[in-house]
């Protein structure tokens, strides 16, 4: 009964978030595709003859990087304002705030799924049959876990310090450039070492290998990415629980 009620709540909140977001814009759902596609077009124009000239199937390589990054940044960003944005609800109903956070990520997952379907269509048009989709779904689940962890931490710290939003925008900008989205990571030097500690590198690299190049990456990459995501989830949830008693008084 409790699980049934919780899943109903999760579904209804995700659904209403999705509907509300589309209702407030003239183009609605088209923006989900238009936003990443415009960014993709600009970056392809700028980089294809420079950084991407040596990369096999560079347009697909770039697009995969953009949409994988988008899932993380949109999901985590939505989580940040979830508690403050639902202040009146949290002050009036004994609701499990965790469900609101997870619903924010599910909302981002819907957008991401639309992008992935479009991406799969592009793969087929390019003559690539993505036979390793089941393995990609594992990467998606691990990415989901990682994003939830970051989302928990961000949502809770934002209640206490509102300038987390500004700090986060600086961090994500630096993180975007540190992640091989539009360039190929170097195999030597500081950049290559940094990538080893970057969960988004694993997420994007594994997705590209599985969907674009139809190659099965070594198992240890999955294990490292899963380990990082687990740490993110445990740490994020710990921060969330630690700060939770202050929420109602501060929103």
């Amino acid at each position, binding site marked *: *009964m409790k699980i*049934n*009620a919780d899943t*109903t*709540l999760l*579904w*209804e*909140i995700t*659904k*209403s978030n999705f*509907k*509300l977001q589309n*209702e*407030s814009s003239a183009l609605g759902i088209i923006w989900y595709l238009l936003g990443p596609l415009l960014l993709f077009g600009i970056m392809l124009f700028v980089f294809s003859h420079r950084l991407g000239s040596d990369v096999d199937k560079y347009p697909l390589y770039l697009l995969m990087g953009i949409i994988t990054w988008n899932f993380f940044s949109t999901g985590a960003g939505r989580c940040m304002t979830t508690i403050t944005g639902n202040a*009146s*609800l*949290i*002050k*009036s*109903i*004994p*609701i499990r705030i965790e469900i609101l956070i997870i619903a924010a990520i599910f909302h981002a997952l819907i957008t991401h799924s639309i992008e992935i379907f479009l991406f799969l269509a592009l793969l087929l048009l390019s003559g690539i049959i993505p036979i390793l989709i089941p393995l990609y779904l594992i990467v998606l689940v691990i990415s989901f876990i990682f994003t939830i962890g970051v989302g928990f931490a961000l949502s809770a710290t934002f*209640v*206490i*310090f*509102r*300038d987390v939003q500004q700090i986060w925008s600086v961090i994500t900008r630096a993180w975007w450039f540190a992640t091989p989205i539009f360039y190929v990571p170097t195999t030597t030097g500081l950049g290559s070492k940094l990538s080893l500690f970057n969960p988004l590198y694993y997420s994007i690299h594994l997705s590209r290998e599985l969907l674009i190049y139809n190659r099965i990456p070594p198992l240890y990459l999955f294990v490292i990415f899963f380990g990082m995501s687990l740490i993110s989830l445990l740490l994020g949830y710990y921060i969330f629980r630690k700060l939770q*008693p202050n929420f*109602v*008084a*501060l929103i």
Partner: protein
Amino acid sequence: MSTTPAIFVENVYKDFWVHARTDATILSRIADAFPSGGKRLHSRKIEAVRNVSFALDRGKVLGIIGKNAAGKSTLLRLIANIYEPDAGTVIVDGTITSLISLSVGLRPTLSIIDNIYLACSLFGMPRSHIKKVYPQILEFAGITDACMYPYQLSTGMNQRLSFSIAVHTKPEILLLDEIFSAGDIAFQSKAQQRMEELIKGDTTVVMVSHSIERIRELSDVVLWLEAGSVKMIGEPKEVIHAYIVSMQRELIAK
């Protein structure tokens, strides 16, 4: 039937710190941590609830009265487990539906049918149950077109919808905060009738209201809060009489 009380509250305290600053930036939080001139000038402590104790049996109605800022809504939120007490114990045995704010859960730009599904799920109802009760919710609220949006309805109609959703969730414990102003006289009488049905059906109710008449009509026990503490608890007639006398004395003294 269980013999334990539905709600058990013992020596409960709840304080709030009101920050002088409304911002919540890292710099202001650091400034808050350091007392200025030896005193914490930045914030003020509000003792919202002080040493409150009571037990309410299943199927009984507790009316909470008191002046503004007496701690009534805070006590309701402590029972609802929205606030954690600073000290003391709150034990609630049963599923809670809290109607603390009448507009809660309703999104103006979502259709009424979507709003009903969302609000019912917020009150802990599974989808199969919502499917069964949503025609009753609409009928009780007097809404004929479920495809309309709350922003197309009057404030009164929105309040009727919220009340209708809350009373159709089959709560074991219902917490109500100033809901008797919802809708017109016809709806208020319908609402009272529904409340009586719920009470007969073994629902435990805690309600906060400035409407002394409603409290007198519906309550089995009345709790009078003053400055966060229990001034008096007992038979509705006695407590309400003492409260009115006190209010009159205060008015004369002014």
